[in-house]
C-alpha cells in the first residue's frame, strides 16, 4: 500500500502548483486541477480502505500498518520524531471521510465561488488544508500529529479570513487562530510531559497496551493527580480547543465568516473532529491508564452538547445555528468516547462515537452545503429573509430535509444509528447521563426543524430583497454534491461499522437497543412536533414564548455571555494587570536600554567618523606610530 503516500503528497503538490500559479491564468484552471487531484486521492483512499479492510485482518483484529516512515529528528535512541503513514481502522476511516467531503466541497465550490476574487487562492488553501488534515489523520506519532495539527490551524485561519477585506472575517480568523493556538499550548505541554516520561512519540508504542512504559509516570503525582493524568488532560485540552468544546468553543461560531463550503469542510466535517480523533487515537491510554480523565471528557462533552444546543435554538443566522449544532454534536462524540471502556463489548461508546463522527461529517457537510445553496440564492444569512423556499429550490429542500432527519435521529437515516449507539453507551455508563443526552437529542431535533421550517416553509412577509432577486435552484454543480451526500446519509446507517472500527480493533456486531431507540425516536419526534407547531406557519407563538422566557432567551441569544466573559478576562484583567505593566517595562526599560545603546554608538561614531577620512597618508601615520609604539613597548616596557 505504498501508494497511500500519494494521498498525502498530491494535495501538497497541488497546493504549490495552484498557490504559485500565475494569476493571469484562468481561475477555472486552478479549480479544475484541484478538483481532479482531490478526485484522484479520493479514489486512492477508497482503494486503500478496501485493501486495508480486506487484507489486514489477522488474529481476530485489524493490524496497524505503516507503509512509509521517515526518521526525521533523532533526540535519543528511543525518542525520535518520525514522519510517516499509519494505517489502522480509524485513520483509514478518516481518510475516506476527509477525502469524500473534500471532494464534494471542491466540486461545490467550483460553482459557489465562481467569480470571487482570489478563486485560485481559495483552491490553494483548500488543498493545503486537505494535505494537513490527511497528514494529521495518518500521523504515526504524536509529534507529527502536532505538526499537522498546527498546519490545519493555519489553513483554517487562512480560509476563515478568505474575505480579508471584511473586518469581521479578519477578526474571526484571528480569534480562531488565537483560541486554538492557546489550546495547542496545553497540547504541546501534554506531549512533552508524556514523551518525557514514556520516551516515545509513537502511537503504536503508546497504544500497544504495554503498561510498563507508564510505570514511572503513573506513580509520580502532581497536585493530587498522577503526572500521566495531567499529561493526558493537557492533551485533551488541545483537542478541546480544536473541537470547540466548552469553554474553548467561542471561535467556531465566528468562524462562519469564512466561505460556506469552507465551513462545511473544516468547521463541520473534518478539522473540528480532530479533537475527537485525537482522543480516539490515544484511547487505550485514556481508558486503561487514566479513566478519571476520560470521565472528565465525558462530562465536558455532555455540558458542551447541552449548552450549545440551547444556544442553537435561538440563533437567527442559519450558519450560526449550524455552528452551534456542530459543537453540540461534537459534544455527543466526546460523551461517546468518555463513557466507553476498552475492550470488545465495553468499547461500544468508542465505536459509536467514531460512527457518529463518520455520519455527522456527511450530514453536517450536507447541511452546510445546503445552507450555502440557500445563501447563494437569497444573499443573506439571516432566516428572517427566508421562507417558502421549498417550491423554488426543490433539490436543496429535499436534501436538507434528509440531513435534518438524520441529525434529529429518525430512522432509517444514518444519524439515528450512530446517535442511538451513543445513547445506549451513555445509558450503560449511567442512566442520568443517558437521559440528559436524550433530552439534548430532542433539543437537536427541535432546533434543526426550527431552522428547516424557517428556511423552507414559514410564509413570512417577503422582504424587498426577494423581489429584486428571484430565488431559483442552484446550478447542477452545487446540487450534485448535495445529492451525493444525501444518498450517503440515507445508506450510511446500514454500514456494519462495528466490523471495521472498534476500540481494540476487533469485531463487534451492532445490535440496536430497542428500548433506547424507541425512547430517542419519541423524543426526537416530540422535538420535531414542537418545531412544526411553532414555526411551520408564521404565527405569534414564538414571540409569546420568547416573552415568557425573556431572561433565558436573552442569555442564549448572547451565547450565555461567554464571549463577554472572555473579553472581560482578557481586556480588563489580563491587559490591565499583566500586559500593561509588561508593556511599560518593555517600552521604557528594554527599549530604553536599546535606545541608549543606539544613542551612545551614534554619538561615538559621529566623533570618530573623521578618522575614516580616505586620506591614505593619515592611515599611514596611524599605522607607523602604532607600529613604533608597539615595538617600543615590547622592547623597553615588557
Amino acid at each position: 500500500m505504498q501508494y497511500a503516500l500519494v494521498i498525502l503528497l498530491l494535495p501538497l503538490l497541488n497546493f504549490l502548483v495552484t498557490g504559485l500559479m500565475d494569476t493571469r491564468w484562468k481561475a477555472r484552471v486552478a479549480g479544475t486541477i484541484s478538483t481532479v487531484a482531490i478526485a484522484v486521492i479520493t479514489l486512492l483512499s477508497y482503494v486503500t480502505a478496501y485493501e486495508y479492510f480486506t487484507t489486514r485482518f489477522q488474529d481476530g483484529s485489524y493490524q496497524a500498518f505503516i507503509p512509509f516512515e521517515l526518521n526525521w529528528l533523532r533526540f535519543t535512541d528511543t525518542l525520535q520524531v518520525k514522519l510517516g503513514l499509519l494505517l489502522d481502522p480509524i485513520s483509514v476511516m478518516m481518510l475516506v471521510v476527509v477525502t469524500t467531503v473534500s471532494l464534494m466541497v471542491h466540486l461545490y465550490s467550483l460553482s459557489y465561488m465562481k467569480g470571487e476574487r482570489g478563486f485560485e487562492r481559495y483552491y490553494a488553501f483548500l488543498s493545503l488544508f486537505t494535505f494537513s488534515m490527511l497528514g494529521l489523520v495518518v500521523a504515526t506519532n504524536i509529534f507529527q500529529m502536532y505538526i499537522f495539527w498546527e498546519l490545519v490551524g493555519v489553513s483554517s485561519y487562512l480560509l476563515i479570513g478568505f474575505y480579508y477585506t471584511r473586518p469581521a472575517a479578519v477578526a474571526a480568523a484571528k480569534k480562531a487562530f488565537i483560541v486554538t493556538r492557546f489550546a495547542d499550548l496545553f497540547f504541546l505541554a501534554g506531549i512533552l510531559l508524556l514523551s518525557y516520561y514514556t520516551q516515545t512519540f509513537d502511537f503504536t508504542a503508546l497504544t500497544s497496551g504495554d503498561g510498563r512504559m507508564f510505570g514511572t509516570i503513573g506513580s509520580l503525582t502532581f497536585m493530587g493527580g498522577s503526572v500521566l493524568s495531567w499529561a493526558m488532560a493537557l492533551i485533551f485540552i488541545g483537542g478541546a480547543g480544536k473541537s470547540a468544546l466548552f469553554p474553548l468553543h467561542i471561535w467556531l461560531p465566528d468562524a462562519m465568516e469564512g466561505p460556506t463550503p469552507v465551513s462545511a469542510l473544516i468547521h463541520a466535517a473534518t478539522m473540528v473532529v480532530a479533537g475527537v480523533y485525537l482522543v480516539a487515537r490515544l484511547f487505550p491510554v485514556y481508558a486503561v491508564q487514566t479513566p478519571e480523565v476520560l470521565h472528565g471528557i465525558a462530562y465536558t462533552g455532555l455540558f458542551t452538547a447541552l449548552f450549545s444546543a440551547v444556544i442553537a435554538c435561538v440563533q437567527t443566522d442559519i450558519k450560526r445555528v449550524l455552528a452551534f449544532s456542530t459543537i453540540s454534536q461534537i459534544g455527543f462524540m466526546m460523551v461517546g468516547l468518555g463513557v466507553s471502556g476498552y475492550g470488545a463489548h465495553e468499547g461500544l461508546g468508542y465505536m459509536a462515537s467514531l460512527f457518529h463522527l463518520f455520519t455527522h461529517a456527511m450530514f453536517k457537510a450536507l447541511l452546510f452545503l445546503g445552507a450555502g445553496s440557500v445563501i447563494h440564492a437569497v444573499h443573506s444569512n439571516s432566516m428572517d429573509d427566508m421562507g417558502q423556499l421549498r417550491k423554488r429550490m426543490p433539490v436543496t429542500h429535499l436534501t436538507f430535509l434528509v440531513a435534518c432527519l438524520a441529525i434529529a435521529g429518525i430512522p432509517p437515516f444514518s444519524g439515528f444509528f450512530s446517535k442511538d449507539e451513543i445513547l445506549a453507551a451513555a445509558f450503560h455508563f449511567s442512566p442520568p447521563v443517558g437521559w440528559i443526552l436524550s433530552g439534548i437529542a430532542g433539543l437537536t431535533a427541535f432546533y434543526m426543524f426550527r431552522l428547516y421550517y424557517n428556511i423552507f416553509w414559514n410564509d413570512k412577509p417577503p422582504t424587498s430583497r426577494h423581489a429584486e432577486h428571484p430565488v431559483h435552484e442552484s446550478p447542477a454543480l452545487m446540487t450534485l454534491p448535495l445529492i451525493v451526500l444525501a444518498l450517503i446519509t440515507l445508506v450510511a446507517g446500514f454500514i456494519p461499522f462495528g466490523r471495521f472500527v472498534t476500540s481494540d480493533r476487533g469485531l463487534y456486531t451492532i445490535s440496536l437497543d430497542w428500548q433506547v431507540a424507541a425512547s430517542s425516536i419519541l423524543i426526537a419526534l416530540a422535538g420535531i412536533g414542537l418545531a412544526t407547531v411553532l414555526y411551520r406557519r408564521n404565527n405569534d407563538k414564538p414571540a409569546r414564548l420568547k416573552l415568557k422566557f425573556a431572561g433565558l432567551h436573552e442569555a442564549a441569544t448572547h451565547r450565555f455571555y461567554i464571549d463577554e466573559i472572555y473579553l472581560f478576562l482578557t481586556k480588563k484583567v489580563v491587559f490591565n494587570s499583566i500586559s500593561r505593566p509588561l508593556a511599560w517595562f518593555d517600552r521604557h526599560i528594554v527599549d530604553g536600554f536599546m535606545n541608549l545603546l543606539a544613542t551612545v554608538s551614534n554619538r561615538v561614531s559621529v566623533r570618530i567618523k573623521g578618522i575614516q577620512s580616505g586620506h591614505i597618508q593619515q592611515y599611514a601615520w596611524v599605522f607607523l606610530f602604532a607600529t613604533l609604539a608597539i615595538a617600543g613597548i615590547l622592547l623597553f616596557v615588557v
Partner: protein
Amino acid sequence: MGESILTASQAYIPLEAYILVSLIMFFAGVYGFLVRRSVLLMLISVELMLNAADLNFAAINRYLYPEHSEGFFFALFTIAIAACETAVAIAIFINAYRNLQSVKVNSISTLKE
C-alpha cells in the same frame, strides 16, 4: 669565481653596516610616503622600502646562514612582486589621472564612500 677575493676581506664589513644602510633606505621611504603628495613619489618611497627589505634578506642570509639560500630567493621573489605591484599601480595612476586630471593623493579619496 670571486671566492678568493671576497673571503679575505669580508670580515671587515660587519653585518650591522648593511642593516644600517637598509634602515636608512627604509626610513627614507617611510618619510617620503608620509609627506609627499604625489602618488608617483609615494610609489617611489614604497620601492625604496622594498629595496631595503631585499638588501636585509640578502645580507642576513649571507652572514648568518651562508649554507642556505632562503633569503636570496626571498629577495628574488620580492623583486618580481615589486615589479608586478609597480606595473599595476602605475596603470591605476594613469587611469586616475585620466579621470581626475591629477595624481595628488588628496584628490583620490572617493573610495571611502
